[in-house]
């Protein structure tokens, strides 16, 4: 090709890219007039530009390494390894003999050299160890299953790895599988019933932990010589099958099942076969099938050809067991057939229901048995207090900070003009409200919100001289501020920028004004008319116009950078702004999906649009926040990571990454990222908040304090940094300083409900219950919220009005059903309210399950670990309670709340000396003695001299 030709192609290609997609055709037709080949060439390049996506965005070395990794995974086969393993040591296990093998891998008998006990080691099939996604999933599930502690569930001790293979170390169960037993024909009815009962108990326990077995079958049920049943492979079933990230598991399960061996189809529930979502009732169906087989010696659907078998399960009714075995009692037949009902809603709805029909004794007596000895020490109910102290901000900080500063750094591109405009306050506190949309197309509202957000962010960056403070739009949205008056009340602003946006054909008219919120008087106003297809122009002109109104001047040399938008594609920018707008109202979950859609569209137009990747990461993170599905965390991290690779010099990319790392417990890395943000953008409040929070989690309290103080010095009239600092003081036990800071917050933001519930919490800790109650009621009056309700419940609870506290806690749980602490509090209130006491256990179980979910995402959260320990102690699972408590305390040894939890956990388990030791520590570290006195848990020790002594010596 001639060089001239190539440069012609390039010129046209670049020129076309700068145009809106819709305008390209006309442009090329005109520019290539008469040269069709030229036009085709440019068009094909444009088309490939769109398709290129991530093409070449992964460095070559990574691709080569990936390929190598793939190659190296052609390791010796399972059989070869099995041979080798037979005389080997794996971790601290000495392999003794091979016990068996199957779909779930090979099992060996081994000896735990450390503990001197025999265990079973199960090595997973090769396919697992190759796919990191499966591995990760496997770990998570196995970990969840390992939390199950029940005499009828085979205990998982450890999940380990040997030469790149995963193994599970578990309880070695001597005996035979039910499948082996059944080869000899039906079992005596009594034995069949007894085994079913034990399986039912195990299922009940697992289901309470939200763990569904999914593959219950005779081969997974071990029966010991003494008749004790142990269920294997809990929760692992869905993992064995090939898992595509997005495909429903059961659907895939079916695919493999149909094509290959019969496997477990005979016991699968109809909905499972249809690939529909499966819940605990599928396990009850499977139990029905197992019971059928034990009673009759054959499966409910004896067909052996898979396709026909599936059809039978879906459409035909099993023969009544009594037709096959006349010894089966009529009641048992009823149980079996009810369990095997095709529609889940027609089956038993819980294992307990089934157990009742099988004639099993009630839960309470069953459960008391295993721990009877320990529990006997203190009669009856023991537990901790409802005190849930507060939510004061713990955990809120990082979520609140989620809103990223998603605007390219502009730093000092404007200089502050020496007092230009008249009538403006000397210390300007500005809120930018979303421009109202007149008429307009779908998405215009979101666009207008996004525009306000970037406008506020750019004005913030311009205002390096600190004479102007701009409230982040995300904060306005979080407080539902829509009017100038509200902005003044909640954020104490003295200026508001507001406006409207009106479409007329392909033009947009924007009018905007600077308003004094105390009088609603317009101080200055402007009207612009621009092409609707030019969002860059819209933003640039509004930024420049409002900067002028505020007395900020733009230096011409830096104009280019001020006007940088991170992309050159108008469509991409427009979508990006819309996405930001949607995300502001993330509380409506459909908005998160819309935001994701907008950012993805932006990236489709411009795959190098770094800010859009960072924003997409944020949207995924929000999605995780609402769905609590950890798959979104992965996506969020991926997106932020990609943003950093694209442009590490953009503050937003590091902020994005920092927030994800912090949110997943990688605080040291998070600190690095936040510091990078501050290098690029030294006034970013978000980065200060994130940095200090991470420092706090690494127990660098002085550093965290200094970081907050720096943030305050940058924005002395912005309430949020005071609040963060207060939370820090609160968490490290300096309650008086905390209260002082919280009080400042209520002064700076008198309409902020958080300010009041935080102050209420601090007052409570200082023993000022009356004030606390008042502050909390003010908080609820401003805005009904779960935190204040829960804390109000806590205060009332400590005042001994248990029944009244139930109402507050129930309100809290309604507003925030996924917060473990709120459920734990409710459990406390139920426990001490005689008419509700029976509901307590369920509330604690729910709380424990939610805490475990949270720990899956952030395994080093000492708060969650402590909560979990408490709930476990409450349901008498002391083994795990101690473990989790120990871990929590080693992570946060100075956390007063944890010390108190420690006192309660030991108290509940009957270890008085340890309990009082922790109680002493908690009191010495500032835990309010009043709260201890009021905590009904201690009633049993009321007359105990040691306890009395402690209470007496701590009088504050």
């Amino acid at each position: 090709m001639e060089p001239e030709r190539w440069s012609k192609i390039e010129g046209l290609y670049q020129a076309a890219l700068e145009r809106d997609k819709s305008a390209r055709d006309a442009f090329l037709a005109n520019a290539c007039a008469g040269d069709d080949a030229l036009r085709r060439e440019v068009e094909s390049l444009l088309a490939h530009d769109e398709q290129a996506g991530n093409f070449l965005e992964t460095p070559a070395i990574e691709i080569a390494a990936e390929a190598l990794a793939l190659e190296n995974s052609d390791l010796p086969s399972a059989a070869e390894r099995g041979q080798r393993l037979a005389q080997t040591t794996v971790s601290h296990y000495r392999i003794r003999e091979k016990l068996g093998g199957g779909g779930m891998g090979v099992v060996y008998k081994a000896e735990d050299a450390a503990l001197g006990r025999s265990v079973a080691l199960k090595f997973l099939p090769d396919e697992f160890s190759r796919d990191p996604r499966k591995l990760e999933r496997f770990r998570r599930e196995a970990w969840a299953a390992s939390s199950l502690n029940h005499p009828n569930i085979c205990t998982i001790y450890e999940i380990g790895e040997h030469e790149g293979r995963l193994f599970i170390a578990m309880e070695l169960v001597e005996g035979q599988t039910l499948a082996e037993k059944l080869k000899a024909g039906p079992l005596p009815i009594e034995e069949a019933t007894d085994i079913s009962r034990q399986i039912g108990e195990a299922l009940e326990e697992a289901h309470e932990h939200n763990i569904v077995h999914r593959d219950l079958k005779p081969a997974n049920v071990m029966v010991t010589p003494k008749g004790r049943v142990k269920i294997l492979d809990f929760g692992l079933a869905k993992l064995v099958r090939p898992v595509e990230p997005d495909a429903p598991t059961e659907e895939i399960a079916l695919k493999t099942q149909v094509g290959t061996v019969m496997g477990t189809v005979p016991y699968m529930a109809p909905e499972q076969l249809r690939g529909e979502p499966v819940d605990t009732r599928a396990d009850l169906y499977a139990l029905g099938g197992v019971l059928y087989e034990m009673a009759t010696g054959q499966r409910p659907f004896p067909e052996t050809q898979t396709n026909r078998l599936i059809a039978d399960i879906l459409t035909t009714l099993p023969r009544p067991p009594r037709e096959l075995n006349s010894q089966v009692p009529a009641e048992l037949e009823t149980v079996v057939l009810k369990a095997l009902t095709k529609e889940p809603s027609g089956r038993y709805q819980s294992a307990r229901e089934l157990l009742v029909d099988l004639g099993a004794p009630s839960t309470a007596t069953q459960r008391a048995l295993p721990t009877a000895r320990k529990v006997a020490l203190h009669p009856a109910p023991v537990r901790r207090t409802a005190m849930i102290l507060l939510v004061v901000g713990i955990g809120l900080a990082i979520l609140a900070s989620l809103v990223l500063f998603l605007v390219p750094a502009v730093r000092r591109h404007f200089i502050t003009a020496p007092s230009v405009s008249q009538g403006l306050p000397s210390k300007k506190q500005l809120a930018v409200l979303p421009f109202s949309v007149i008429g307009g197309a779908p998405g215009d509202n979101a666009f207008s919100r996004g525009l306000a957000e970037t406008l506020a962010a750019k004005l913030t960056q311009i205002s390096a001289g600190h004479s102007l403070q701009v409230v982040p739009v995300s904060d306005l949205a979080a407080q539902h501020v829509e009017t100038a008056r509200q902005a003044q009340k909640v954020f104490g602003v003295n200026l508001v920028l507001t406006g409207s946006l009106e479409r007329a054909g392909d033009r947009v008219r924007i009018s905007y004004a600077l308003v004094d919120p105390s009088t609603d008087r317009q101080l200055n106003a402007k009207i612009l008319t621009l092409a609707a297809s030019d969002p860059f122009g819209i933003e640039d002109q509004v930024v420049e116009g409002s900067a002028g109104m505020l007395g900020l001047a733009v230096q011409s040399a830096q104009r280019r950078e001020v006007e940088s938008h991170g992309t050159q594609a108008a469509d991409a920018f427009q979508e990006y702004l819309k996405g930001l707008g949607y995300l502001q109202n993330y509380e409506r979950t459909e908005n998160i999906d819309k935001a994701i859609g907008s950012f993805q569209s932006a990236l489709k137009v411009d795959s190098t649009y770094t800010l859009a990747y960072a924003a997409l990461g944020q949207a995924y993170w929000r999605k995780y926040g609402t769905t609590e599905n950890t798959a979104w965390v992965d996506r969020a991290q991926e997106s932020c990571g990609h943003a950093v690779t694209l442009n590490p010099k953009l503050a937003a990319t590091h902020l994005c990454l920092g927030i994800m790392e912090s949110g997943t417990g990688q605080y040291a890395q998070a600190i690095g990222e936040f510091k990078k943000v501050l290098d690029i953008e030294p006034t970013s409040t978000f980065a200060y908040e994130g940095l200090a929070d991470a420092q706090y989690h690494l127990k660098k309290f002085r550093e965290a304090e200094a970081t907050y103080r720096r943030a305050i010095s940058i924005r002395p009239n912005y309430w949020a940094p005071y609040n963060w600092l207060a939370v820090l003081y609160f968490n490290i036990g300096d309650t008086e300083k905390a209260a002082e800071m919280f009080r400042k917050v209520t002064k700076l933001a008198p309409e902020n409900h958080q300010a009041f519930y935080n102050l209420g919490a601090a007052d409570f800790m200082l023993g000022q219950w009356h004030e606390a109650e008042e502050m909390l009621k003010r908080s609820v009056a401003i805005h009904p919220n779960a935190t204040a309700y829960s804390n109000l419940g806590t205060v009332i609870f400590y005042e001994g009005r248990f029944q009244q506290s139930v109402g507050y806690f129930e309100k809290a749980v309604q507003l925030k059903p996924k917060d473990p602490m709120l459920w734990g509090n409710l459990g406390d209130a139920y426990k001490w309210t005689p008419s509700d006491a029976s509901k307590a256990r369920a509330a604690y179980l729910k709380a424990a399950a939610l805490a475990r979910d949270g720990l899956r995402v952030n395994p080093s959260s000492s708060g969650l670990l402590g909560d979990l320990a408490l709930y476990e102690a409450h349901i008498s699972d002391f083994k795990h309670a101690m473990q989790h408590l120990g871990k929590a305390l080693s992570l946060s040894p100075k956390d007063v709340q944890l010390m108190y939890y420690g006192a309660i956990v030991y108290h509940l388990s009957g270890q008085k000396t340890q309990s009082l030791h922790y109680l002493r520590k908690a009191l010495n570290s500032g835990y309010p003695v009043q709260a201890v006195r009021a905590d009904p848990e201690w009633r049993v020790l009321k007359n105990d001299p040691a306890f009395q002594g402690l209470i007496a010596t701590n009088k504050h």
Partner: protein
Amino acid sequence: MRRAPTAHDVTLLLQAWGDGDKEALDRLAPLIYRELHILAKRFMSRERRDHTLQATALVNETYLRLVDIHQANWQDRAHFFAICARAMRQILVDHVRSRGSIKRGGGQQPLQLEEALVMAESPYSKLLELDDALNRLAALDQRKSRVVELRFFGGLSVEETAEALKTSPETVMRDWKMAKAWLHRELGDNQNGA
């Protein structure tokens, strides 16, 4: 303590190669391969929670370990970047060629159909095709070809690439975008993975 290709070794070898010492590349290759294996191993291992993020971090770390610009007497950072990317390209492409021929079995057995399909789609063959296409691009537009070499093989950022080519980041972005479109077309459809 790992004693292994130090950044210093690699930097000196790169320098020697840049100065015309052809053998330096042969000595450099094993060091790069070693890193490649370490990287591959870590890709396979369990510490890899999130694919992209971790991979990116690992790759960056690898580069950092390999080349420490502060230890070298490069009068010209730009020159160093260029040499580094060129060496990386040659070594990786050589590596891929050698793997490919081993895999193909050196005439021992005809490939089974399934395996042949896998090979055609493998990242290896893509890298080789890309190398060829990049040579063709160089004939048309030297600078764009170098942008790709620096970014894709050298792992450089847009800014560093601009520095190496003594041009502006905007130009690099424009070149990169067009070169990607062109190469994408040259390599046929469905190249999103590479």
